[in-house]
């Protein structure tokens, strides 16, 4: 599906953000990239859809060498890569519907885009997605009138309407409160399973990463220092990624919750979504209590 080979990026300032990172993603799963601020997580994600131009290395998506594409071809390629951002990056003054439909901009003509004449099936898909992310009835609200969690839901719908082959997610929860953060990550993880969509997720909260990811990538100073299942992330690994700290609490509780989540997904389907959310909150409260 996605191969990244020896990806490197040196910024004009001389800062080496990535020093030869490799990654092979061959099945639909949620891969969480963890690491301290400045480890190169954001650069890694942006080098894949070339919002940041890599200095060296190759990115191959479904057999196409992304790094070799020309500007025009790259725009076409980006249609197959959905992206979700830390600050949502919605077009603030446009409606929710326009924001969701903007995910189709790579597929429509200039005039269709100018007069908001999107193909009927796109509009229908947009309504379905809004319903799926829990925003039915919000299509005519302006994006800047929404709360953080609602905005990120719009961001998710915008990425999904592209029908992407891969979802790139850059710190989706850093601007959200803990409860909303978990709901949003849960939504992304559920959608990934529903659609068989591989997700490359950037996240600095280790607890959340271990809770929602099926595979963890540890980045430190521009290098991949760990690649494995969340179970394998122990204190030694975390120390290697982040440096010295007390990791015990974070890992233990997160690990238990991850198991519960997997059980729930195996047991119940779809309609128990709200219940799951509620129990998430309870878990969170217990978790917070245990930390104190």
């Amino acid at each position, binding site marked *: 599906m996605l191969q990244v080979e020896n990806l490197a990026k040196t910024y004009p300032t001389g800062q080496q953000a990535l020093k030869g990172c490799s990654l092979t993603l061959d099945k639909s799963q949620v891969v969480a990239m963890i690491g301290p601020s400045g480890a190169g997580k954001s650069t890694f994600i942006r080098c894949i*859809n070339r*919002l940041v131009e890599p200095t060296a290395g190759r990115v191959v998506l479904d057999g196409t060498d992304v790094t070799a594409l020309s500007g*025009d071809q790259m*725009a*076409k*390629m*980006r*249609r*197959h*890569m959905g*992206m979700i*951002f830390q*600050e949502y*990056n*919605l*077009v*603030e*003054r*446009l409606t929710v519907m*326009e924001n969701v439909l*903007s*995910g*189709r*901009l*790579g*597929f429509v003509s*200039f005039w269709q*885009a*100018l007069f908001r004449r999107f193909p009927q099936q796109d509009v229908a898909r947009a309504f379905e997605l809004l319903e799926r992310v829990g925003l039915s009835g919000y299509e005519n609200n302006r994006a800047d009138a929404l709360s953080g969690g609602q905005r990120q839901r719009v*961001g998710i719908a*915008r990425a999904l309407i*592209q029908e992407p082959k891969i979802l*790139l997610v850059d710190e989706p929860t850093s601007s959200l409160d803990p409860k909303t953060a978990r709901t949003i990550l849960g939504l992304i993880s559920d959608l990934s399973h529903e659609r068989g969509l591989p997700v490359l997720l950037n996240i600095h909260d280790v607890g959340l990463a271990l809770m929602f990811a099926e595979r963890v990538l540890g980045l430190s100073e521009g290098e991949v220092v760990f690649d494995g299942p969340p179970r394998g992330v122990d204190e030694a690994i975390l120390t290697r990624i982040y440096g010295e700290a007390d990791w015990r609490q974070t890992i233990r509780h997160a690990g238990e919750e991850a198991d519960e989540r997997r059980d729930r997904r195996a047991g119940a389907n779809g309609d128990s979504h709200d219940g799951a959310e509620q129990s998430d909150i309870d878990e969170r409260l217990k978790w917070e209590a245990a930390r104190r």
Partner: protein
Amino acid sequence: MTTPATGADGAAATTRTWRKPPMIRNRWLRWLIVVLGAAYIVYAVDDVNLDIDRMIRGIPKAIDMFGQMVPPDFSRWQLLLEGLLESLQMAIFSTAIGVVLSIPIAIGAARNVAPKPIYLLFRGYLGVVRTLPEVLIAIFFVKAFGFGAFAGMLTLTIASTGFVGKLLAEDIEDIDPGQVEAIRATGGGWPMVLLYGIQPQVLPRYVGLCIYRLDINLRESTILGIVGAGGIGATLYNSFGRYEYDFSFAILLSIIAVVLVAEWGSAAIRARIT
């Protein structure tokens, strides 16, 4: 505030004072600038021959002129109306054309959107246009295309592109890059980025600028006639030349009325959209 006795003495002894650091740190340089500034004002007042005598002698003449101005003479209202309408037309047409031309100019002159050579080219254009006062451009166009409203219209169009182009370009440079990044990430090309990433962010400001410029053009159009570029200004200039001060006053009152209405309308609309 009273503090408990224990330990208060020690703290009081080392009271730390603080003052805002001066803008110019070097004390000598600071005073040198003050002295030079004062000296220049003295020199300038001396140099322009501020002549109190002449001022006093002028007062009766001024009073006499104002005396001839009242009551204003509106008897030739057709001539007045003709001039005003011409000014209005100049202002409206030039604004309409100017603000449309401003869009590509602003895009070209925005550093975060245009490639370097294009950016420099358009910034150069804006620099030249914004340096030249309207009246100077008008004189040039009157020489080139002859007397009349056409020269005035061209002048105001060019000046409008300078004004709206510059301010809109700066607004484009200030947009949130995240929204642009998001549109690029969806695979939208350059026109899509313009349409969805940039346009919604600058539209309210652009509309505000257009209305503000219409207001400015209305004012400017009343004055350009003085250099022969059409409009009510020519009528005003001629009336002064013929010592028809009562007619001049009528014209002035009309101009003031038009400008006030324009300014008030523009402010009201702009307050609503931003």
